């Protein structure tokens, strides 16, 4: 059994069917990419899995249904979402944002983990007492990722971590994603930048208009004519 098993997942906003019954899975330790154009339903998928939207169909995490788990309980289960737009606490310092990430923890290693995040993102270490709202977009993305890692997730879901970032910063963020994955965290990565996503992922899904139209190894998807045409601009 995979860590995350999704079968025939449907989400509607009023009368709008954003997800029309998708199936996907993420195995323990795997990095899976979910790609698709604007409005395909990528964010909707992650929100439903994080407990921010009601869904119908099946979503099992560690062999247990997520259906009646509230969003805050899913964090306890080990699911963390870095949302689209980052959602940092603008009026809190970088340090306090990281401490919020460790909200569910009561162990003695929180301070040590904060140092580890600072090692991962030295830029944050310099700005630990700065208000997160005054950081650049890239720095906020680092805060959002660091904060999510502070909960010590088993499954990390990232919604367009490259959005709005300069190429150098995008590279830095993707290096970090590789790094986190290498440490054994399972990752579900949503990206519009299909090339980047498929380069770091092991497997991928293509989402179009609320349906999954392709699924394969990341290498095969990168090479497939359909993906090249639709998402890689060649």
């Amino acid at each position: 059994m995979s860590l995350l098993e999704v079968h025939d997942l449907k989400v509607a906003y009023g009368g709008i069917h954003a997800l029309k019954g998708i199936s996907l899975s993420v195995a323990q330790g795997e990095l899976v990419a979910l790609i698709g154009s604007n409005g395909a339903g990528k964010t909707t998928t992650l929100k439903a899995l994080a407990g921010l939207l009601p869904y119908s169909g099946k979503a099992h995490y560690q062999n247990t249904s997520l259906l009646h788990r509230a969003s805050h309980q899913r964090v306890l289960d080990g699911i963390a979402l870095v949302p689209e737009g980052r959602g940092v606490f603008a009026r809190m310092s970088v340090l306090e944002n990281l401490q919020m990430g460790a909200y569910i923890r009561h162990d003695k290693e929180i301070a040590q983990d904060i140092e580890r995040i600072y090692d991962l993102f030295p830029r944050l270490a310099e700005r630990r007492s700065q208000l997160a709202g005054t950081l650049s977009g890239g720095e906020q993305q680092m805060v959002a990722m660091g904060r999510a890692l502070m909960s010590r997730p088993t499954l990390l879901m990232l919604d367009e971590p490259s959005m709005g970032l300069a190429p150098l910063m995008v590279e830095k963020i993707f290096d970090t994603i590789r790094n986190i994955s290498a440490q054994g965290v399972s990752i579900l990565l949503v990206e519009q930048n299909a090339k980047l996503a498929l380069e770091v992922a092991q497997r991928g899904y293509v989402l179009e208009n609320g349906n999954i139209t392709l699924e394969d190894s990341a290498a095969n998807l990168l090479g497939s004519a359909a993906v090249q045409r639709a998402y890689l601009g060649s």
Partner: protein
Amino acid sequence: MDILLQQIINGLVQGSVYALVALGYTMVYGILGLINFAHGEVVMVGAMIALAAIQVLLAAALSPLLVLLLSVLLAVAVCMALGYSIERIAYRPLRHAPRLAPLITAIGVSFVLQNLAMIIWGREYHSFPQLLPNASHHIGGAIITEVQITIVLIAILVMTGLMLLVHRTRLGRAMRAVAENQTSASLMGVNINKVISTTFMLGSALAAIAGIMVSANYGVVHYYMGFMLGLKAFTAAVLGGIGNLRGAMLGGVLLGLIESLGAGYMGALTGGILGSHYQDALAFVVLIAVLVFRPSGLLGERVSERA
């Protein structure tokens, strides 16, 4: 007698009470964007419960200090339960309703509490027993009673405690997180409903303490006492910048001073046309002036964004 100094002392005492009550309005507003108009009635319930407890305990011949302590604890506990229930029953079902709905409900809850209190305790004024030694001290040309000193000291203590709680603890951080972004907070594993309940309970605990303070200062309690006090504390919260904790404290103390100095000098300034009985109107002149000239209050930044 030094009128200026005396009015400043009176203003600080009354301002301490306003500050405690204003904090309750501002905490709830900060976290829910809701004006809890029933909050003033919680102050009244706190005073009533304390009075009832004092009467019973005094009859049991306990020492006055112990009686006071137990009554305060009981009033705080009852008000916390009341605050929790108000949120649970009246506001939570309307969490996603249009903004007018919870406002109307708040006024409804306020009437219900007032009328319940009237049924239980009647329409008459009850005298609130003096439990602390009511010695007074002369400073400059003014008089301050020990009750007043106690009120100001306890208010400072309670407010310091609240600030430490909000800024230094895990719970306080969660409260600020929920106030800022509920979705993000829930993604951190924060149980939003629990934090909202806790906020109502904290505000209500402050209200209970404030209720006992005014009762001890003036020596009377009445089922209607929460109404005007609530409105004035709300004014203080708006004056300081609603949603801002420091603002509520500053607004409370300032309003206390404005009222008391206004009452002391209004007659002289208007050549006897307006007397000190216009004191209550003064608070609302302040409210209107703030709303016209500085709607975000003294320390508030972004009220309009939330509205």
